[in-house]
């Protein structure tokens, strides 16, 4: 404004005093917002943060090796190691166990590598078929046909005292197959 230099000093003083408090007020609120924002964001992203440290994965027992006949593929279920009180039945997870021979196994996630629908095993034709979009996989989990871009997800496994144990705890998705991340993780009971 062109009148600025001739404004009376007294009004300028009051104005800047008000202005000062206004700015102080904004600063004070900014500080308060920061103090509240940090816990809010950490709360919101807690599920992400925990996942990044692989905090969801642990070794899960699937049962005695003798439950799985050699040369066959069978469905079995386990309880997801990470449980919340409101989960209900959703923590029950299914997977396909293929015992090739002896202690050689393949444990496949139930979820299709296309969009996560539950795949079915057909021993007669030796195929896994998906009911949703028509993906099909061979007995070793390799992609056979349909929209999936890869084979079935596999859980890392080990055999402890004759018990088949897999490293699981997280929904495998095409962008996050999980298994490869956890292959070298040590056992945590």
């Amino acid at each position: 404004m062109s009148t600025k230099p001739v404004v009376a000093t007294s009004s300028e003083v009051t104005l800047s005093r008000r202005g000062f408090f206004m700015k102080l007020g904004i600063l004070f609120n900014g500080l308060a917002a920061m103090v509240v924002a940090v816990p809010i964001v950490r709360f919101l992203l807690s599920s992400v943060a925990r996942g990044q440290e692989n905090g969801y994965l642990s070794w899960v027992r699937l049962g005695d090796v003798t439950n799985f006949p050699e040369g066959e593929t069978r469905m079995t279920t386990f309880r997801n190691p990470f449980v919340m009180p409101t989960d209900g039945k959703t923590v029950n997870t299914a997977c396909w166990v293929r015992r090739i021979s002896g202690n050689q196994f393949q444990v496949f996630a139930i979820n299709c590598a296309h969009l996560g629908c539950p795949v079915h095993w057909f021993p007669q034709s030796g195929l896994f078929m998906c009911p949703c979009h028509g993906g099909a996989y061979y007995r070793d989990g390799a992609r056979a046909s349909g929209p999936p871009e890869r084979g079935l997800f596999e859980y890392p496994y080990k055999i402890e005292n004759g018990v088949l144990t897999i490293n699981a705890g997280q929904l495998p998705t095409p962008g996050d197959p999980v298994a490869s991340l956890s292959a070298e993780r040590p056992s945590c009971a």
Partner: protein
Amino acid sequence: MRVITKIGEWFDHRLQLAAPIREAAGHPVPRNTASWFYVFGSAALTVFILQLVTGILLALIYVPSGGEAWSSLQALNHQVTLGWFIRAMHGWGSNFMVAIVLIHMAQVFLFGAHKYPRELTWIVGVFLLLMTLGMAFTGQVMRFDQDAYWGLGIGASIASRVPIIGPAVVKLMLGGPIIAGATLSRFFALHVFVIPGMLIAFVSLHVLMVLKLGINEWPMPGRIVKRATYEAQYHAMTKSEGAPFVPYAIWKDMFFAAFIILAVAACAYYFGPFGPTGQPDPTIIQTAPKPDYFFLWLYALLSLLPPSLETPFLLIGPPLAIVGLLLLPFLSGEGEKSWKRRPIAVITVLMIAITLGTFTRLAQFTPWSPHMNAWSGDPVPDRYIHGTTALERQGALVFQVKQCRNCHSIDDTGGQRGPALDSVAVRLTRDQLIRQVIQGGGNMPAYGNNLSPAETTALVAFLETLHPATQSPARDAARDLVLSESSPKPATQP
């Protein structure tokens, strides 16, 4: 009467709302907008209010807990008086809302209402469409059954494909490592608090702008929109030949609103509530999850796209479509409004409608999905094995037991993933059949590892019988020639 007036005056002295309401109700609108084409916006608002009311009623009983949601829906369906009806109203209301919003959008676009000065109204409308679809998807999750469970898995699988941040997005979406109680809770928060709150704010803005800028006049071919002159022309028009919105135009909105509410109620009464289907127990895998009808087109698309195109399409397609819709009023903010002089606009709308309609229809049949029970449920019809040799019958058995029927139909029963095999012998020679069975190809898995040579021989012998009586099976003419010529002069190998 005098008391009521007094009370009214007492309130208005404090609220001071009567004058602006009267002004809004009586604002002049172009006479030609009092049309049955102009009722879809208010119809969408009507259904939205209906959804708010029925939604609140459902929340009186519904429990957003992974362990109890399904049984609380059962209680609504079977235990609570008229719970089934309120659920059905809410479910059908959501179908109607998506449909009406889409019709409203198409109408507004074809009438050029997105042009100057109503660009922002259109943009807010695009966000309203996205929120409506967001409500539809989160609403499907509220019906916490098998479809909801596996639908979330599909959502997570799509989200995971975003480069770099995909895995983090999945955990944020699921609220944990798997689809579970926390997932339902956060979708409940989105469905009940976040998106409705945003919807109310954006709907208010949308309606406010319609009031401030005036309803789009009926487009006349040749009447060109120009930034410099449009508003003056519009005001002159409403002044000279306008009529007050109430009651001149509103009665059609009111009739249509009542009609829509009755239509929702009628559908709810006759067809009943949607689901819930089986319990959300991921160990029960005997299910073929399907989305609700407004996402069926996407379901079809995800089945039909070539695998390599799918991720780029999913990640680039929707943002591109949204940006295109948002930029539309800036790219064509002026010029002709009438659809009679905008052939490309008409063709675009028709093409989108036909594409979505076709995909939706296809998704009702799901020809791409194997019929999991066809091999054990659909027997080979008698006439196909009548008068066949022992080998061919053995082949029919292999055909059945190896689940060929899950993907291939004969006599119109069986899967449609692969081609029907009623006349396969006309298309493929014996050698081609053997090759296709053993090596697969196209969309067919290779069966070389799962069939013994004897089984393959039998199967192909059976397949060779599959041709219409009037058509002879395919044969390799060159091979016949070589075989017939081979006796006088033996073929020499180079």
